[in-house]
């Protein structure tokens, strides 16, 4: 999965690539964190899991996105210990982030609905 930044050198994978918009990645990250706080590695693993391996978020996209979300105030970070006793940076949703997730989800659903209707138009 690539994000929409043209000056990033991408590691092209042999498997199928789907283009995803930056906003969509943000949405996925927020959703993931809504379930429980976790570190960057955990987020990417969880997204893979939840999407049945379809969505594999590249680190080049994930970390900048996470940092941006933090700067925007939707999530916050704190240092903690991982499940295997390593020092890791954990992220969790803020109240504003929760609201944002709800809004973005609604927008996404409306959009997806509209797009599929157009595509199904005979």
């Amino acid at each position, binding site marked *: 999965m690539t994000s929409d930044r043209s000056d990033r050198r991408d590691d092209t994978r042999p498997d199928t690539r789907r283009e995803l918009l930056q906003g969509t990645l943000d949405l996925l990250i927020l959703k993931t964190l809504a379930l429980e706080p976790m570190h960057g590695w955990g987020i990417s693993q969880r997204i893979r899991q939840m999407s049945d391996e379809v969505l594999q978020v590249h680190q*080049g996209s994930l970390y900048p996105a996470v940092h941006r979300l933090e700067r925007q105030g939707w999530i916050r970070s704190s240092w903690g210990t991982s499940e295997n006793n390593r020092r890791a940076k954990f992220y969790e949703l803020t109240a504003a982030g929760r609201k944002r997730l709800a809004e973005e989800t609604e927008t996404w659903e409306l959009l997806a609905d509209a797009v599929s209707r157009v595509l199904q138009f005979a």
Partner: protein
Amino acid sequence: MSRLRSVWHRLLTLVGRPRLERDLDDEVRFHLEMEIEQNRARGMSRREARSAALRSFGGVDQVKEACRDERGVPWLETTVQDARWAVRSLRKTPAFTLTAIVVLALGVGGTTALFSVVHGVLLEPLPLPEPDRLVALWESNEERGWDRANAAPANLLDWRERTESFTGITAHSWTQGWALSGVSAGPERIRGVQVLGNFFEVFGVAPRIGPGLDPEAHWATGEKVVVLSHGLWQRRFGGDREIVGRRIELDGVPRTVAGVAPPGFTYPEEDLDAWIPFDWQPGFRSAVWFRRAHMLRPVGRLAPGVGVDRAREELAAVADRLAEEYPETNRNFGAGLTPLREWTTGDAGRPLWILLAATGLVLLVACADVANLLLARTTARGRELALRSALGAPRTRIVRQLVTESLTLAAFGGLAGIALAYWGTRVLGVLAREALPRLDAVSVDGPVLAFAVAVTAAAGLLFGVGPALRMARAPAARALQGGARGGSSRGGGKLGLPSSRRLLVLSEVALAVILVVGAGLLLRSFRQVMETDPGFRSAGRAAMSFDLPEARYPESERVLALQRELLERLEARAGVESAALASSLPLEGAQWTADFTVDDWPPDRYGIDFARRIVSPGYFQTMGVPVLLGRGFRPGDDESSRPVVVVNETLARQHFGDQSPVGRRIAFTRDPADASVWREVVGVVGDEAIESLTAGGRPEIFVPLGQELLGEPGLPHRHPDLVVHTAGADPATAVPVVRGTLHALDPALPLYDVRTLEQMVARDASRQRLLTTLLGLFALVALALATVGIYGLMSYSVLQQRREIGVRLALGARPGRVVGRIVGRGMALFGAGLALGLAGALVLARVLESLLFRVEPTDPTTLALAAALLTATALAATLLPARTAARIDPMETLRTD
């Protein structure tokens, strides 16, 4: 809310950079470790797991960079980065950098130095409480041509009673000198004024020590007091805390010290020593002379909420009513007011603003020069910038970088300029000492520094943005292709130069022309002033003043006797050609003016506003004033002989036309019926410049020493000025002689205000001299900068056209013709600038009109000379590079490239 947090995060990032870096490292490391673990769990070896993890992660640094981008404050960081890069880049080209900094320093330094003067003299508020509520009041009389004249005491007192627009009105006399005695360490002459009792109150100034003056102290109470200035108190009394109540003597009159003024307050002069109250008898209030003697300088404080206009209207109305009530004294008299700030600066405002504008022009020339230099430099850097562009830097980024570089350069130039301004302000302070008021307030302080910073930033943007935009626009591909042809590629035009550079040089030339013309006009005007005949001979003559106070010389006979004795003794000395006394000297202002009538004139015809001077018989001879008709004074003309007068040329011309006034009789009153003393005119002398060299003649009547006692008011003149004409060249040699002679007559009379007549003439022209010097300096700087600009442009042009020149020479063209062509093109460009500049000078010269004396703003000689000067320098600047062109070896140029 989130935006706030966003800004907060960005700011935090700036502050906590190292910590964030570590966090980022740790975060990435953690991810890699987890992936490595996962890989190992899948069965890879440790090395395989690690390399797989790194590969799948992608570029670690790029990810970090992306994260930093998301977090940091990009514009600030990149700007700092750009600035550092700019400094490195500037250090690599020291010649350019140094030249640019020097040029900028000249521009910024000059502007800042002059602004510090403008700020201190014109803009800075007076160091008084609520200074903008203070106004100077004055009387005017259209008939006499009086404007902003002193007020008569009776009028002032009526203003106080009849107006409501002021919380207080006070006044002071002209500055006087008193002999201070009764103190240890000998007599000294101090300067002071007489004031109304409420003087300090109106100014809002409380005495540092002591009660100060009673508000009605100007009415004589028998007790005589004095308030000392802080400076005098420290200097002569050692800051004695017990000074209040002490008795000192001023001009032999004992006075009690009533207080000390706070430090810094010395109104109305910059080095005043004392204030004493007027000594008016109650009977004065209704006396006619009390309403006629215009001897006060009033100052008022506006009441809260009252504007200047309203107060002015009320004052004018009161003056009108007084004119009705007292037609004999107040007919045609009006009253007005001026804010005190404006009043203290006088007419120094206009020339200063003109000078500031001139420095602005110099700054523009400097910016044009630097812009030109930058354009030349960025053309050479074309390849480097093209590479950056090809690598993906957006145009705005490149422009921003170039602008940052310009601003960095400007910053260095600005710093150098500020240093130059410090020095320049000190020099200006010395040069302008007699020409400008309030020089003590001139310094490079906060507002001036802020101005310097603003000017520097503006200059940086001015010369930076243009070249930056140009550079970013240049087609990258061609620049990358190479050779030194980068410059001639785009719009080569004439001389193989882009039109922007030619335009810059054109404007430089035009601006330099304007400044040179301005300086030339002032120079001619100054020469006119200096060549004006002051009406007397100034070489070999010195002047000194002394006082004969009433306390020591109560009888008029003794006053006259001492003066005559002094003259007699002086003239007997070898080395003294002649000596004379006068009640006032030329170029120092008229002290006593009055009206006069002639014996056969009708009652409604009279001469107004002549200057009366009392002079000793040898005056005209000593001063070298020619006697045009009749005779001067003889020793026999004194208080016991027939009353006589001598008039000057202006008075004779104005009131007697072609007829000779000799033999006619004059009285110092308007109506012949009131005349008590008729004085016969015995001669006409040439005019002396009374007010200033440029003001022209003024009607004068001279009274011989002693005859001032005849008629009204019949008082001897107690503040004579002495003039000594020495036999040798240096008049200063007379001073110790006079001192000794005076001391022998009376040791308690101090001699003061020693000056030579040549110094007096120079002092009168001091402001003109200052203006001319400064504008001349600015014009020279602008000329130098413009010449450098032309030279730089021509050198570059020759460089750009090397191939073409080489080809021509190879084809057989004579070197002379080649040079001629280049010079011709260069001078054509210069000519366009010259024409533009002359046109501009014609338009702008009107601004100088008020400063010029006997010179028209469009004076053709000046214009022609300026054009010639500039053409000569431009020719030199063009010729030099052209000659190197002629020496180009055609084989060499054809081979390279």
